[in-house]
C-alpha cells in the first residue's frame, strides 16, 4: 500500500520498457489536437504546393477511370457485371486508392519522420493515424466526383442504379479498409526499420494486391477454381460489399464480412503492438 502511494506522488516515471502491452492510450487521447492539426497541415500543404490544388483529387481518379475503361473494358473486354464501366471502375478506384494510400503512407512513417521523432516526444501512433485521417479527407472529396458521375448516368443516360439498404454498410466498409491498410502499414513500417529494402516491395506489392482484389473485375467472373484464392484476401469481401450497396451488383455475405473484420482486428492489434515496440528505441538505430 505504501508503495502505491509513493508511485502516485510522481507525474511520470521513465523506465526501461518491460511490457509490450504498455500502450499509453491516455497519452494518445491527450494529443488529439495534434492529430487534427496534422491533418490540417497535410491538406493545406497539399493544395498550396500544387498549381492545380485540390483539382488533383479529381484528376487522378478521372484519368485512371478513363484508362481502365479503354484498356480493361474496350481492349480486354473484361466484364463489369452489366454496369456502365466508368461507374464500375470509379467505385473500385476511389476505394482502392484510399486503402493503398493508408498502407503505403503509413509504411514509411519512421523514415519520413525520423528527424522529428529524434527531437521531440509525442505518442508516435499519432502520425499513422493522421495519415489515415488525411487520406479520409481526400477520399471524401473523391466521393463527390463519384456522386457527380452517378448523377450524370441517372440524368443523361437513363441509368437506374440498384442502390439498396446495404449502402448503410458503406461507412463500416471504409472503416475496415482503413484499419486494414493502417495495420499492414504499421507492421511494414516496423519491419523497414530493420530491413530497408522492404520499402521497395511495398508500392509494387500493393499494385499486385489490387489484381488479387475484385477492383477491376467482379468476383462473379472469376473462374470457380480460383475463387477461393481471391476470397482469402480480406479486402475482396469488402469491395464486393461496397459495390453491392452502391450499384446492386456483387455479393454481400455476412460470413465473408466477419472474416474480413476478424483478420483486420487481429492484424491491427499486432500492428499496434509491433509499432509500439519498435517506436521506443527506433531513434537509436538510425
Amino acid at each position, binding site marked *: 500500500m505504501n508503495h502505491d502511494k509513493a508511485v502516485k506522488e510522481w*507525474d511520470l516515471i521513465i523506465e*526501461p520498457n518491460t511490457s509490450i502491452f504498455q500502450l499509453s492510450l491516455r497519452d494518445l487521447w491527450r494529443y488529439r489536437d495534434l492529430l487534427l492539426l496534422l491533418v490540417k497541415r497535410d491538406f*493545406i*500543404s497539399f493544395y498550396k504546393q500544387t498549381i492545380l490544388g485540390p483539382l488533383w483529387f479529381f484528376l487522378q481518379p478521372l484519368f485512371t477511370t478513363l484508362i481502365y475503361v479503354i484498356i480493361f473494358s474496350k481492349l480486354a473486354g473484361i466484364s463489369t457485371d452489366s454496369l456502365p464501366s466508368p461507374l464500375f471502375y470509379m467505385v473500385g478506384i476511389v476505394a482502392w486508392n484510399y486503402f493503398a494510400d493508408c498502407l503505403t503512407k503509413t509504411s514509411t512513417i519512421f523514415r519520413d519522420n525520423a528527424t522529428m521523432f529524434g527531437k521531440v*516526444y509525442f505518442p508516435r501512433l499519432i502520425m499513422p493515424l493522421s495519415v489515415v485521417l488525411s487520406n479520409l479527407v481526400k477520399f471524401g472529396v473523391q466521393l463527390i466526383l463519384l456522386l457527380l458521375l452517378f448523377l450524370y448516368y441517372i440524368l443523361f443516360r437513363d441509368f437506374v442504379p440498384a442502390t439498396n439498404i446495404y449502402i448503410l454498410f458503406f461507412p463500416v466498409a471504409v472503416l475496415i479498409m482503413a484499419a486494414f491498410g493502417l495495420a499492414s502499414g504499421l507492421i511494414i513500417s516496423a519491419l523497414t526499420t530493420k530491413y530497408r529494402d522492404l520499402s521497395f516491395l511495398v508500392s509494387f506489392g500493393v499494385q499486385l494486391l489490387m489484381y488479387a482484389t475484385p477492383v477491376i473485375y467482379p468476383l462473379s467472373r472469376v473462374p470457380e477454381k480460383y475463387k477461393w484464392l481471391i476470397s482469402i484476401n480480406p479486402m475482396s469481401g469488402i469491395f464486393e460489399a461496397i459495390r453491392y450497396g452502391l450499384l446492386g451488383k456483387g455479393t454481400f455475405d455476412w460470413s465473408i464480412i466477419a472474416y474480413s473484420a476478424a483478420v483486420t482486428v487481429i492484424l491491427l492489434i499486432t500492428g499496434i503492438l509491433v509499432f509500439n515496440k519498435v517506436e521506443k528505441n527506433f531513434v537509436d538505430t538510425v
Partner: protein
Amino acid sequence: MSIAIKVEQLSKIYRLGEFGTGTLSYDLQRWFARMRGKEDPYLTIGEINDRMVKGSDVVYSLLDINFEIEQGDAVGIIGRNGAGKSTLLKILSRITSPTAGRIHLRGRVASLLEVGTGFHPELTGKENIYLNGAIMGMRKREIDGRLDEIIDFSGVERYIDTPVKRYSSGMYVRLAFAVAAHLESEILIVDEVLAVGDSEFQKKCLGKMGEVSKGEGKTVLFVSHNMAAIKSLCSSGIYLQNGALNKTGEITEIIKSYLNNTIKTDNEGLIPEGSSTYYTGVARYKKLKIINHSGDRTSLYYRAPIKIYAEIESKEEIEDAVLDLRISNREGFQVVHCSNIYENGKEKEAAIHKGINKIEVVIENLLQPGSYSLTPGIHLKDGLSLDYVENILDFEVLKIADGNEQDLVYNWDMGIIRLNSDWKVYGQQ
C-alpha cells in the same frame, strides 16, 4: 523544497552489430549460408566485424547515473562531446528509453532539443505556432490563451499570416523559440539551441530562460558548450565524463573542474591519441607546445608574442585546410580566435600533406595576465571541421614583462584583452 527530477542508476547501452546487416537480402544470404553449413559471407569482410572481434560491441552511453534536482533549480549539464549529455536529455524527453534504471519526474516536461521541430514551410506563422505547440504537447486552447504573448515575444507580428518559407532564418528561429518559451510545463529541458540566432536574440532567450527559472519557479535543465551562458543562467551543474557522472554541485565549481579535468598535453607537447573533441579520421593535431615560454613550459611574459609549434598528422593531401587556434579564459569564455585565412585581409588556405606537417604560429599577445586554454582546430574551407581538441593546452600570462624583475604596477584586473592604443595628451598652452 521538493524534488522535481530523481534519476536512479540510469544506464543506456548502444549495441553495435546487433541489428543485422540492414537489408533483407543480406540477411537471407547469411541465413542460407548457415543452412548449407558455410561461413557467413558477410563476416569476413568490412571493418565492422573487426570492432566486434575486439569485443566492444556494447557501448555504454550512460553508466549508472544518479542525481536529484530540486524544484525551481536551473541546472547546467556539462561534458565533452560524447560524454552522454544528449543521451541523458533524450531519455529525459522520452525520445529513447533507458536500458536500466529509472527517472521520476514531477510536473510536465517540455523539452527543446531543437527549435522549430515540425515547422512546415507552407504554413503561416500562426498555423505553425499551433502545430509546433501541439507537437510539444500543448492543447489547442492553451495555445489560444497564449497566442498574443507568443506573437509578441517573437517580434514577427507583421508577418504572422505569411508562410514561414518566406521568413529569414532569424525570424524563423525567433518564432520557434517563442513557442517553446511559452510552453506550459514545470520542467524545461533545453539543448544547445541558442547557438543559432543573432547575439541580441540569444540574450533575449537567456533572459527568458532566467525569468522562467527564477520568476516562474520552473526547473530548467540546460546543455551548452558556452560556459559563460551556463554560468549566468544556472545555479548548479552536472558534469558528465565518458557516460559517467563525474561531479555535481555548485556551478562555478563544476565549470572549474570541467576545465581542469580535460586532457592536457605532456611535456613534449604530445597530444594523447583519442583526446580530440571532434575527429573525422583524416587529419589530427599530434603535438602542440608554446616555444617562447618564460622557462616554465606554459607561462609567458606579459605582451610576449605567443610562439607555437604544432604537428599535424594527415592521412590525405588536403588542398584547402583552414587551421585555427582558439584561446579561452578560465571561465570557458572564448577570448581570441586566430586562423590562417583572412590574415592581413588575404584569403589563403594551407596545403596539408600526407604524413607529418610542422607548423609554427606567432600570435600577437594582447592578453591580460591570467590563465588561458588553447583549442587547436583543422577545418575545410567550406566550414567542415576535421579535428579540434578543446582546451588541450593551458598557459598563463604573467604579470611580468620580459626582462623586468618584478610585477608591473598597473591595475591588472581590468578586462581580458588590452588593445594597443595611442594617447596624445595636450596641455593648455
